[in-house]
């Protein structure tokens, strides 16, 4: 019986007392039953047969409750047998000396079987405990593969270990190399550590060896503290706080804790490696983007600058060579170069704003017709010569969006349509309502974008392979997508060869404010 916990908690004492008495009562009852049965069958059997029956409670007591109960059963059995069956019956005196021998054998059998059964039972219990811990270990080891978040994983670790060995577990780790230990997981609840205990943890982290209670080192200063190691590096420390009077952990629990610590080490290393891989992948990716940015920006900045510088220096150096018309043309190319530079700067600023993560949408109710009107006004220059068709239904509801950002989407789409095809092309703008969203499309009659390139047109710095365009930055559409995503909307392209490309963006419909319905009944009388 587990007597270690006896009297630990006063409230439990009574119940435990009952628990201890109950097996003896059952054994006594069993013996009483056997005595009654024996009395019934003595006319047909010899008393020695009845004696064997008394072995039953001894065996059962040993298997279920241990040595104490089986010994009790043995003695009580012998006494009862003597009293009720051995002549002279109903007295403890023994007339035949051979009966004393029977008692001796009976007692011996009782004691031996009792202790063997008890041993067996203990083995069984230990095996069960081991199995429980193994199972816990196994479940933890499976989580190493399944969970990506280290702190979540370590929390589950601590919980599983705590349940497996019955105690409080805390895991502490330095946030970075050579920094102070920080609690990453604790179960159940949380723990407060004294300076002494913290000193022991630091020692464990530094030396990679166990310390605290039950070890050679600093045994009075703290509960047992285990190092969590991997590749000869101590990554964390594991504090095991078990309510126990023993000096250290029982060997089997200690093994379990060590196995857990090893697994935790593997898990930490695994997550670190994954993080490093992600980091280097990100670095490589951002370097690629950087190179593309430099390439794109240097090209896109220099080209319009070249047309400006060329035009201006031409006009400055030889004032009299150019007639009025040529001068006008030079000035025109300067103006175009400047406005192209301006577009590039706008897109770069947009990109920076969208990627800084500080973008706050200033959502308001936007009238799509108003939006289109402003966009057309601002793209007048670049769309010069294009025929632009607008079809917006009168009853199109407003959309809740950042007008300024939406305007940039519209302007980018119009500029794309205007610059990627022949001059004097046709562009149609349309809007519609359906599926709980407002759709706005800009369609051009430019050469259709090849199927395999369509998926990439919204990527940053992506330029069409055989683009005749002179002024794409590879930024406009990626900005459009980022803006749409920020709004919870979508943007996509449909291309039909021979018919052109249609860019459509969709914004989820939201409930209109009641004020939107404001109407006045009577007209103003003149």
């Amino acid at each position: 019986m587990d007597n270690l916990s006896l009297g630990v908690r006063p409230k439990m004492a009574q119940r435990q007392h009952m628990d201890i008495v109950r097996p003896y009562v059952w054994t006594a009852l069993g013996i009483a039953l056997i005595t009654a049965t024996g009395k019934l069958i003595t006319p047909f059997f010899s008393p020695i047969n009845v004696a064997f029956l008394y072995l039953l409670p001894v065996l059962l007591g040993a298997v279920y409750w241990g040595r104490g109960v089986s010994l009790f059963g043995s003695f009580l059995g012998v006494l009862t047998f003597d009293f009720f069956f051995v002549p002279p019956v109903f007295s403890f005196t023994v007339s035949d000396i051979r009966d004393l021998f029977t008692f001796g054998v009976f007692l011996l059998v009782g004691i031996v079987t009792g202790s063997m059964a008890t041993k067996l039972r203990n083995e069984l219990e230990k095996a069960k405990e081991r199995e429980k811990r193994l199972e816990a270990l196994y479940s933890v080891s499976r989580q190493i593969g399944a969970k990506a978040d280290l702190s979540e994983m370590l929390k589950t670790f601590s919980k599983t270990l705590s349940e497996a060995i019955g105690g409080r577990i805390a895991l502490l780790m330095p946030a970075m190399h050579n920094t102070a230990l920080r609690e990453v997981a604790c179960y159940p609840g949380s723990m407060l550590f004294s300076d002494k205990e913290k000193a022991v943890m630091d020692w464990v982290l530094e030396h990679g060896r166990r310390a605290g209670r039950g070890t050679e080192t600093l045994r009075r200063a703290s509960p047992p503290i285990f190092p969590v190691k991997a590749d000869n590096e101590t990554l964390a420390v594991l504090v095991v706080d078990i309510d126990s009077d023993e000096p250290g952990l029982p060997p089997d629990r200690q093994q379990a804790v060590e196995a857990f610590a090893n697994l935790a080490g593997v898990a930490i290393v695994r997550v670190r490696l994954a993080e490093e891989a992600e980091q280097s992948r990100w670095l490589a990716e951002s370097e690629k983007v950087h190179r593309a940015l430099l390439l794109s920006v240097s090209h896109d900045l220099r080209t319009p600058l070249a047309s400006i510088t060329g035009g201006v220096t031409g006009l400055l150096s030889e004032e009299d060579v150019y007639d009025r018309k040529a001068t006008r043309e030079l000035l025109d190319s300067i103006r175009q170069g400047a406005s192209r530079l301006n577009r590039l700067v706008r897109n770069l600023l947009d990109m920076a704003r969208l990627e800084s993560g500080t973008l706050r949408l200033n959502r308001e109710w936007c009238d799509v017709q108003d939006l289109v009107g402003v966009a057309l006004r601002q793209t007048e220059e670049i769309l010069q010569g294009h025929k632009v068709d607008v079809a917006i239904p009168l009853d199109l509801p407003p959309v809740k969006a950042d007008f300024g950002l939406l305007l940039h989407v519209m302007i980018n789409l119009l500029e794309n349509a205007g610059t990627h095809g022949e001059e004097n092309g046709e562009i149609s703008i349309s809007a519609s309502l359906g599926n709980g969203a407002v759709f706005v499309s800009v369609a051009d009659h430019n050469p259709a974008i090849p199927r395999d390139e369509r998926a990439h047109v919204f990527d940053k710095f992506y330029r069409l392979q055989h683009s005749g365009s002179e002024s794409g930055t590879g930024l406009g559409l990626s900005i459009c997508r980022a803006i749409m995503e920020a709004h919870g909307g979508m943007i996509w392209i449909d291309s039909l060869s021979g018919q052109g490309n249609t860019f459509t963006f969709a914004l989820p419909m939201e409930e209109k404010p009641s004020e939107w319905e404001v109407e006045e009944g009577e007209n103003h009388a003149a």
Partner: protein
Amino acid sequence: MPPEETRILVVDDERQIRCMLKTVLSGNGYDIREAASGHDTLKQTQLLHPDLIILDLGLPDLDGIEVIRRLREWTKVPIIVLTVREHESDKIEALDAGADDYVTKPFHMGELLARIRVALRYAAKSEDEPLFTLGKLKVDLARHQVAIGESEVDLTPTEYEILKFLALHAGRLVTHQDLLRAIRGPQRKDVHYLRVYIAQLRHKIEEDPNRPRYIVTEPGVGYRFGAMD
């Protein structure tokens, strides 16, 4: 050509911009003075009494908004902000502080000249003209009549109030709040309410409501009646 004595103070810490503006504006007949800092602006305004100030917001000593506030303590001189700051909140802040108009760099010279003319004309105007004409649109304030060409347009009272307010400030930047104050009193703050009326108004007076010419939206700030004059 404006009268010779029309004096404009150009404030910008970039010499290049000041030079360019001086060349163009002098060429257009204005008398140009320059200032490169906020304090210089305040001093010169007191000394020279310019008819108009073109003000950059990013000045080395004082923020342009602060300059506007200090000027507005004692003078009504028209101020046109000319700046790289393009965010709506910057525009609204400058207009609230008392600026008359807002032009972002880079700008079209034609546009700046138009804004200068509007601001000067508005400052000089003594009384409301009873009849306002822009293209085919006629707004007769005395008789409360609006017409496109020869045909009269029926407007609701609110639509008429909006159009009247815009016409009275023709060419000038009118903020949402200005308009709302004018039509409903200062307690109304719903800008989308205004948008409904503007949309309705456009359908009644604009030739192509998809490409409005009379009432032009200034994104995030307000409207301008007849962008160019």
